[in-house]
Structures are given as C-alpha cells and as structure tokens.
C-alpha cells in the first residue's frame, strides 16, 4: 500500500471541507467587496446547529446537516442585513474591523449558550474503505461526495440560472447591475443566504471530521479559508475551489511528512508567502485580469 497516496486521499478530504468554506467566503467577497472576518462563525453556527439537532432533537445525520444548512443561511442573512449593509459605502477596512467585532460577539454568545467546554456529535466515522489507491472512512467519502455535489450545483446555479447571472453582474459592478434593472440589494441578500448555507454545511462537516469542537472552531479555521481564497484569487468561485484543493493537500502532506502539530503553521506561512508573491492568486496567468482587491 502506497502511504503517499493514502495521504493524498486524506488531503482530498481536508481540501473538500476547505473548498466549501472558501467558496462561501469568496461569494461573500464577490457581492459585497469585503473580507468577512465573521465568516468562521458561520461555520461554528452550522456545527452547533447540527449538535443541537443531534443531541437535543435526536435527528439523523441528514436532519442534523439540514439544520446546519438552515442555521448557516439564516446567520448569513442576519449578518448581511444587520451589519454589512449598515456599513455600505464605508471604507473596506472599516467593514472588516466591524466584522471582527461581530465575530467576537457570535463566538462569545455561543459560549454563553453552549458553555466553554468542547462538545461533539460523532455519528461514527464508519468503516474504512479502499477506493482505488485511497483509504477513506465512510464520513470522508460522504464529505468528498457532498463537496463535489455542492460545487457542481453551484456551477450550474452561477452559469445556468438567472439568479446566477444576477450574482455575477452584481459582483462585477453593483451600481451598474442596479441600473440595468437587477434588484441588487435582494441579490446580495440572497447570495449571503447561499454563502451562509454552504458555510453552515462546511461547519457541520468540519466538526464531524474533527470530532470535538468549541466556540472557536470556525475562527481557527478562518485563516486557512482565507489562504485557500488567496491561492485561488479572492472573489472568483471556481479558482477558489482550485486554491482550496492546492492548500488542503499542501497542508496535509507537509504535516504528514514533518510534525503534524505544525500543520496550521504551514498554512499561515503559505498565506504570508502567497500574499507577497501572488496576491491575485496562483492561477492568474498573463492576459487574465484579476479581480482587484
């Protein structure tokens, strides 16, 4: 058995969750032009919603996931209406600091509700499966498959539906989209709902994979998410998926071949290097115009 390929398999599972979180972050950025520092909390809310579904309402895995999606979507809507839109027209860094404040509020409210101690809702990782050269648990496979399905659906939504077209228009120029008769405010709102739903699901998957989690689950995952977005190019959904794949694999493999305790540190190191060398993303070749920050 080739251990390298097994590590690649684990990297794929890590990258799948990262891809979902990153694509949600990028959607938020695309329509509102802000880096949402409270993005991690959307994941945490999803995880706690699934936990409530499991432990309090005794839902199945499907029910728990649905609750995570619903709670994430709701949180995304509230965050946009209650905070982001209130700061519309303000300097990007001002909104960024405001979302940092929101992140502090949400984390600590969750701590007040659920307590500071870590919780868990394991559905059991399931048995090990050999899939080609890879070795995955049942939950790894579920995560990878659902990430693929969600990405596919997102692609269809963005490319083939009127709503997707409207999102792309607003992302390019909100004012122009408004003038052309697109209800920009509503489209931005709905995009936040969509991003929140994806983030909520990512939080559910992340918590299930990690096992135990606390109120800072999403916050500690945020920087890795941003790294994936920067690797792909912030604001460009498909490139972000690619960036997540690269970063997820890189972090997992670097961790496996040295000391896995430093996994996140490698991620942060990669972030700093990317920021300096390729701030517009890895995949921006000549002749392509990157979305400006």
């Amino acid at each position, binding site marked *: 058995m080739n251990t390298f390929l097994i590590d690649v398999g684990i990297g794929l599972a890590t990258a799948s969750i990262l891809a979902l979180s990153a694509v949600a972050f990028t959607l938020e950025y695309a329509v509102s032009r802000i880096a949402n520092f409270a993005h991690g909390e959307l994941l945490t809310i999803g995880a706690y919603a699934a936990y409530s579904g499991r432990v309090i309402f005794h839902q199945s895995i499907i029910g728990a996931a649905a609750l995570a999606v619903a709670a994430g979507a709701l949180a995304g809507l509230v965050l946009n209406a209650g905070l982001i839109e209130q700061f519309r027209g303000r300097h990007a860094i001002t909104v960024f600091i405001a979302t940092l*404040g929101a992140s502090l509020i949400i984390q600590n409210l969750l701590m007040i509700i659920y307590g500071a101690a870590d919780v868990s809702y394991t559905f059991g990782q399931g048995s090990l499966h050999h899939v080609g050269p890879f070795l995955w648990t049942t939950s790894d496979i579920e995560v990878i498959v659902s990430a693929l399905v969600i990405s596919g659906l997102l692609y269809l939504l963005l490319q083939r539906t009127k709503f997707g077209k409207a999102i792309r228009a607003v992302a390019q120029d909100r004012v122009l989209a408004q003038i052309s008769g697109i209800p920009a405010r509503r489209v931005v709102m709905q995009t936040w709902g969509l991003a929140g739903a994806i983030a909520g699901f990512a939080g559910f998957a992340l918590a299930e994979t990690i096992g135990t989690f606390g109120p800072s689950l999403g916050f500690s995952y945020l920087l890795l998410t941003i790294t994936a977005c920067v690797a792909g190019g912030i604001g460009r959904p498909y490139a972000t998926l690619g960036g997540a794949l690269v970063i997820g694999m890189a972090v997992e493999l670097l961790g496996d071949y040295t000391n896995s305790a430093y996994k996140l540190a490698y991620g942060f190191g990669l972030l*700093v290097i990317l920021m300096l060398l390729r701030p517009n993303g890895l995949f921006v070749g000549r002749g392509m115009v990157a979305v400006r920050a």
Partner: protein
Amino acid sequence: MSYWVSVITESGIFAILALGLDMIWGWCGDFDLAFYGYLALGSYMTMVLTIGKPVPPTQYILGLTLPYPLAIVVADVIVVALAAIIGAVALRNLREIYFAITTLGAVSALYLVVEVYTPLFDGYNGLFGLINPGQSALNLTYDGYRDVFMLIVLGILAVTYLVVQRLSSSPFGRMLRAVREDERAASAYGRGIFFAKYRAYLFGAALAGLAGGLFAAYISAFNPSAWTPQELLVIYAAILVGGRGNPRGVIVGVFVVYIGFIELTRYLPSPASRPEFAPAMRQVLIGLLIILMLRFRPSGIFAERAGGGRESRDLAAAKRAEVGADA
C-alpha cells in the same frame, strides 16, 4: 485600595501599548493584527532573561538572571528586531485588508510555534516566576511594592505620552498622516512612504515590547492564553472610543474602556456553574462597542486634531463636515 492599584497599573500598561498601536493604526492607517505578539514577546523575553535556569520538566531558552530594568531593554531590542522583519515584509507593498491578513498570518504562525515547541517558552504552560522584581533591593513590603510599581508605570506612561504627543505634532507625525490620507500625493511631494511607515511601525512595536516587560512583572506569569487575538481587539476598541490618532484620547479611551468595563461587568451575575458567563458577556460588549463606535462615531470622543494654524483647522473642519472621518 489594592484593587484600584491593580486596575490602574494594568490600565497604565495597556495605555502604553495603545499609544504604540495608535502610531501604527491611527497615524499610518495600517490595521496591524500582529501587534499583540510584540507585547507577548516582550513579556516572554523579560521572563527568560530574569527568572533563572529552568527546573526540569520545565523548559525554556536562556534562563538568565539579569536585573529587571536591563532585561526590559534587552527584551525590547529583540521585539524591535522581530518587528523589523515583519514590518519589512508586510509594509512594503501590502495595504489595508491584505496587510491585516498578512500580519494575522504571521502572528498566528508564531503563536502556534510558541505553543507547540516547548523548548522555547515551555509551550502551553508558559513561564512563571518574575515576582516583584527589586522588592528586596528597595526594601518594601508587598503592598508597598505594588504602590511603587503603579507609580513607576504611571511615570513611564507620562514620559511616553510626552514623547508621542511631541512626535504627533512634529513634521514626522504630520508626514505619516499625509501618507495615510493619500500615499500617491505624499509620494509626489517627495516623502519616502515605506521608511516613514516603517519607522512608525518599529516605534510602535518598541512601545509594545516595553508594555510587555512591565506586564510580565505585573502578572508575574505569561502563557499562550494571555495573548489571544481577543486581547488585541480590546485595545482597538479603546482607541476607537478615545479617538484614533489623538494621543490624549487614546489614554482616556484605555482608562474608560478598562475601568468602565471592569466596573460594569463586576455586576454581571456570575453563577458558579457557569464561570464563563461574565467574561464572555464582557467580550460581547466589547464587540458591540467596536461596531457601534465604527458605525456612529468613528472619530471617537476626542477627534484627531490637525496640527498647526488656522488653515489646517479649517481643513479639519471641512473634513469633519464630510461623511465623517472614516476609519
């Protein structure tokens, strides 16, 4: 009485820290998330330079027994050296959110290394043992020492304030604000953007290192849980409340936020079964304070003052009349 001595000492230390942070954020407009790391390094270094050889299983580097004041100076030099590296990398081309994220990435990587790599500063456990440095030399009782230490902190704060205030209205301070308002215009007037920002960054970090050295003696122990990103947000909140870019406002802001919040949150119910309730509620209020200040009064209690004559005052008034001095 000793309760107030601790509150004032702690606020004084954080006021020194906030004056440093305000040079970077208030004057230059760079939202630095690595800043608390400089206080942490200042604290750690002061400890390893003073508390002597580690007793196994404890591990840490150096383990010297330098006199406390000398240790602070040496620690601060090391802090500035780290800031020189991070600043050189981050300030060169990165601005705004990109700068913020990069500094956060840098400090998070450092944080992880300090936590995981125990031979450095004993990982999660942190360091302990800098208890009332100089108490026996000064021949003081425990309470007497705490009083004297408070006065020393306030004295250092006063000197820091005078220097910073002086710098603030000097050509250097005004140049930094010109750079903040419009880098291209300032550059066209022949200002060296990078070095202006870089100097302010190093000065700010030096104040953080100094605050860290004082903090080490004040709490006599330091570990990773003492420098989570949340701690830095409180300082940003204090600067926002007091008035970004105005040294007097910054000091008032720190005392208002620290004493105000400590006093207010003392009356929060704190049931024995939920020990996390009061501290969590305090963080929620800090978050709310940041958002509300940014939304409704971004210039704080004391707005930044334009230095000099009538012309610049008119300019400042005109600026205030616009949408509001935005962050």
